[in-house]
């Protein structure tokens, strides 16, 4: 048998039908659903008299719209249109018999944090959701990617997706990360190298010593942003770290079923000599704490760098860089550490897990945020929130001057009231620095949780290594 990549193995195990031209029906093991991209899909089912084929494999949770303030039980905290979407998800989940975590459930949170936390996401699975950051689940060695609403309806009705296979790309990060450098910096460094379209048409497998050394939380951060590099999905082969994370989770197999699953999961790796269509190798030692300066996730620089000159780019990027600098209100040659911020956001499916909060709290302990700064921590789930409270981390944030919020997507995409005003500048642990992403006219600098904490203390973009 010819050697296979991890992606080849998962793909082959899920082809329910293959047409002569390579168009396949890929069977979907887990379908995650949230309130924003699903109402039209459920409406489509109703209009055609169809139903949900596998409600037991369909998990719904509201996250994008929900307020994260402590008074959110009060319906008035939500706008009318947001409430209609959340109500629609409530109704659809009940009517079609889905697994559901309503806003009032302590397990509610960002769909990509809830799935792994509850043991829905397991190695070797296919996982989809009407959300591009579904790539997160690839950290378990599951093939996971975002889909549009028409495809949400297709999966609801048939439990399959019409797909053609992508190409294989390997991203190897050798060596060990330096202190102050995190999983977020790895994934941003890769995008800085490949560009936002460098992964288009590929599924990326991340490997190498630096990836192996990451916790599951860190691996989820890396895979989460595979989509920002244009890849269909990111993958990391499961190992003991993965199995330890999954064991005992509510929906993970137990007893003999666990043993059987484990035997299978241990076959999920890329064979020696498996063919990759593209390979990128980076040294962990070469990665510094990073920030974005522009309005694309590929606009990545080391914190020690300066705002670049648009003339240093080529092709269409020259104009794009100038547009970014204008939008971001920066000056060519300005030191990145001289950029003052007025908002800090720690949270999102990229960095809203317990380890992220531990990293930020380690920097914040015993310190205060800069006067006048608005700083917010939004846990990825109610359970992350509870754990952070138990570990004393929540108190560190509160003592430092952060708002300690309830779980949701919050200011990552600013669909709820957590938004930037025009001209406001934010150090954010989320995943996109697009124009207007965190609010019209808002300016976003993507950073790791530790870097966000450092910026909160000084009120400007800061090299976290100076505070360690």
């Amino acid at each position: 048998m010819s050697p296979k990549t991890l992606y080849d193995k998962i793909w082959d195990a899920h082809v329910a039908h293959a047409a002569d031209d390579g168009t396949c029906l890929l069977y979907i093991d887990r379908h995650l659903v949230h309130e924003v991209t699903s109402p039209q899909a459920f409406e489509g089912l109703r209009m055609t008299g169809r139903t949900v084929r596998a409600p037991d494999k369909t998990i719904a949770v509201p996250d994008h719209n929900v307020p994260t303030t402590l008074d959110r039980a009060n319906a008035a905290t939500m706008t009318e249109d947001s409430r209609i979407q959340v109500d629609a998800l409530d109704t659809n989940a009940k009517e079609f018999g889905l697994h559901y975590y309503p806003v009032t459930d302590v397990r509610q949170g960002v769909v990509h944090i809830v799935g792994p936390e509850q043991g829905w996401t397991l190695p070797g699975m296919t996982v989809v959701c009407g959300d591009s950051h579904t790539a997160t689940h690839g950290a378990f060695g599951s093939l996971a990617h975002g889909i549009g609403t028409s495809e949400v309806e297709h999966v609801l009705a048939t439990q399959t997706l019409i797909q053609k296979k992508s190409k294989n790309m390997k991203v190897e990060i050798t060596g060990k990360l330096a202190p102050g450098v995190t999983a977020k910096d790895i994934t941003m460094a890769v995008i800085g190298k490949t560009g936002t379209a460098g992964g288009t048409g590929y599924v990326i497998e991340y490997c190498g010593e630096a990836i192996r050394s990451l916790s599951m939380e860190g691996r989820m951060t890396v895979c989460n942003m595979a989509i920002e590099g244009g890849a269909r999905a990111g993958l990391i082969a499961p190992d003991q770290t993965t199995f330890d994370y999954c064991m005992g989770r509510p929906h993970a197999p137990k007893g003999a079923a666990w043993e059987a699953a484990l035997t299978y999961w241990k076959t999920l790796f890329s064979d020696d000599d498996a063919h990759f269509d593209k390979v990128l190798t980076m040294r962990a030692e070469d990665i510094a704490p990073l920030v974005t300066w522009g309005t694309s996730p590929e606009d990545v620089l080391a914190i020690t760098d300066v705002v670049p000159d648009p003339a240093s780019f080529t092709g269409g990027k020259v104009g794009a860089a100038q547009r970014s600098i204008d939008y971001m209100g920066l000056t060519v040659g300005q030191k990145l550490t001289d950029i003052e911020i007025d908002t800090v956001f720690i949270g999102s499916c990229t960095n809203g897990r317990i380890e992220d909060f531990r990293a930020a709290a380690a920097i914040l302990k015993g310190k205060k945020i800069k006067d006048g700064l608005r700083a917010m921590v939004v846990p990825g789930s109610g359970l992350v929130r509870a754990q952070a409270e138990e570990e004393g981390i929540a108190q560190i944030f509160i003592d430092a001057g952060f708002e300690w919020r309830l779980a949701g997507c919050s200011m990552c995409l600013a669909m709820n009231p957590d938004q930037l005003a025009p001209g406001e500048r934010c150090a954010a642990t989320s995943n996109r620095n697009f124009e207007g992403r965190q609010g019209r006219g808002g300016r976003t600098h993507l950073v790791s949780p530790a870097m966000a904490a450092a910026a909160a203390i000084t009120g400007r973009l800061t090299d976290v290594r100076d505070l360690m």
Partner: protein
Amino acid sequence: MEKFDTLSGIAAPMDLVNIDTDMIIPKQFLKTIKRSGLGVNLFDEMRYNLDGSEISDFVLNQPAYRDASILVAGDNFGCGSSREHAPWAIADFGIRCVISTSFADIFYSNCFKNGILPIVLPEDQRDALMKDSEKGANARIEIDLVAQTVTGSDGEIYHFEVDAFKKHCLLNGLDDIGLTMEKVGSIDAFEAAALSSRPWV
């Protein structure tokens, strides 16, 4: 779904790389539970001032391009969020075809579910069509999906590639779900086999 076979129309130039789906349709318009009515908010933050008045130099606000049915755009069009509201807004505005050197994966798939043809061309050909579209309303571009060609206003013909299955669905306005339902036997068989080989799933 609306069929797509040929299209002759005005092309609007958007010479900007990485046009993301947040630009195409900002988040505040995702709170709808319908697919229709989003055209008025297409490119909202580039198109309107905060007071709702039009930004006159934005391409789709210029008289020549108000009836554009084709977009010619910079690299990596449609990157970012998976929101299908982006193609819904594009189609609702009246644009049925986008031409670029590359598209983000999810957006590209979403187009075909909504009767929009995304066309990938090499950089020099896209650049030629960008120049062509800058001529305004008198320069019409023609698309023929059956022949897989784009014809510029000067008669120059460019061939493009498209997946045969996607082309078939677009030409005939076919509903994917209906097509897949015809293969329900294969899905049943797969599910039964998976139940014994991976019972924990």
